[in-house]
């Protein structure tokens, strides 16, 4: 079995483990975490929405860092990693952008509001969908890597603005209750469920990236073999 296939199989196994972990998070969130008094059951969407958002922003930040390193070192592994991370980031963004409005409706009374946090997050999602479309459209590997690295770096620059947008602009979106200079303002049972969910989402991220990386490498090798033949 070649290392390409091994990477992909390990990635699939790791992400499957992540999905099983997600089922565990559902049990923990629904059965063993208290119901928030003011928001009711809808508050438990928090245990999916927030870890998905953290992982999406982590994935897009790593795309930017790998892209900077690619432009410096021209190592195709960095380009492959950036593309795999962007793919996973788009999947997590889809979770964040669908669970967010479903949570907002019963709490804010509206599905969506065009404030800075939500609008910037939607732009970030579109930017990385564009990143993936660009990669699909350019066939020369070195051009594709260079062009997409520039888009990846621009996308990464949005991430700190998204995190700080709740401090900089008037918004309905709550301010951070965990990732802030002072101690997390969450009861311990809720914090425990949130951190376990974050770990599970990170396992999913690693599994998705490994699988996608192995797939891209396999496709490149197949193309090389076809060109040589």
């Amino acid at each position, binding site marked *: 079995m070649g290392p390409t296939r091994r990477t992909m199989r390990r990635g699939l196994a790791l992400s499957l483990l992540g999905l099983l972990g997600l089922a565990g998070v559902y049990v923990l969130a629904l059965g063993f975490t208290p119901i928030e008094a003011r928001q009711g059951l809808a508050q438990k969407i928090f245990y999916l929405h927030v870890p998905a958002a953290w992982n999406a922003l982590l994935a897009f930040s790593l795309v930017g860092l790998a892209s900077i390193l690619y432009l410096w070192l021209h190592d195709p592994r960095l380009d492959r990693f950036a593309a795999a991370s962007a793919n996973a980031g788009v999947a997590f963004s889809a*979770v964040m952008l669908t669970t967010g409005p479903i949570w907002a409706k019963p709490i804010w009374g509206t599905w969506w509001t065009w404030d800075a946090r939500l609008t910037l997050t939607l732009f970030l999602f579109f930017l990385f969908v564009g990143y993936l479309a660009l990669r699909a459209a350019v066939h020369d590997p070195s051009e594709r890597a260079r062009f997409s690295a520039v888009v990846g770096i621009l996308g990464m620059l949005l991430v700190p603005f998204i995190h700080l947008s709740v401090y900089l602009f008037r918004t309905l979106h709550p301010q951070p209750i965990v990732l802030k200079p002072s101690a997390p303002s969450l009861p311990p049972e809720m914090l425990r469920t949130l951190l376990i969910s974050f770990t599970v989402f990170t396992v999913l991220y690693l599994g998705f990236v490994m699988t996608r990386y192995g797939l891209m490498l396999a496709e490149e090798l197949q193309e090389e073999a076809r060109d040589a033949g």
Partner: protein
Amino acid sequence: MLAEPPRNGEYLVAAYVVATLILVGYWVRLWQKARTVFSGQAPRGT
């Protein structure tokens, strides 16, 4: 006396179903692509 928490469990169910569909769907798509890439002419990894 504390007020009853609001009854909004349908939003919770909707969000959990949507998130599951996205993540499981993404995994299935990766698995199908892997099967296609490695069916027949499996490339040798480097």
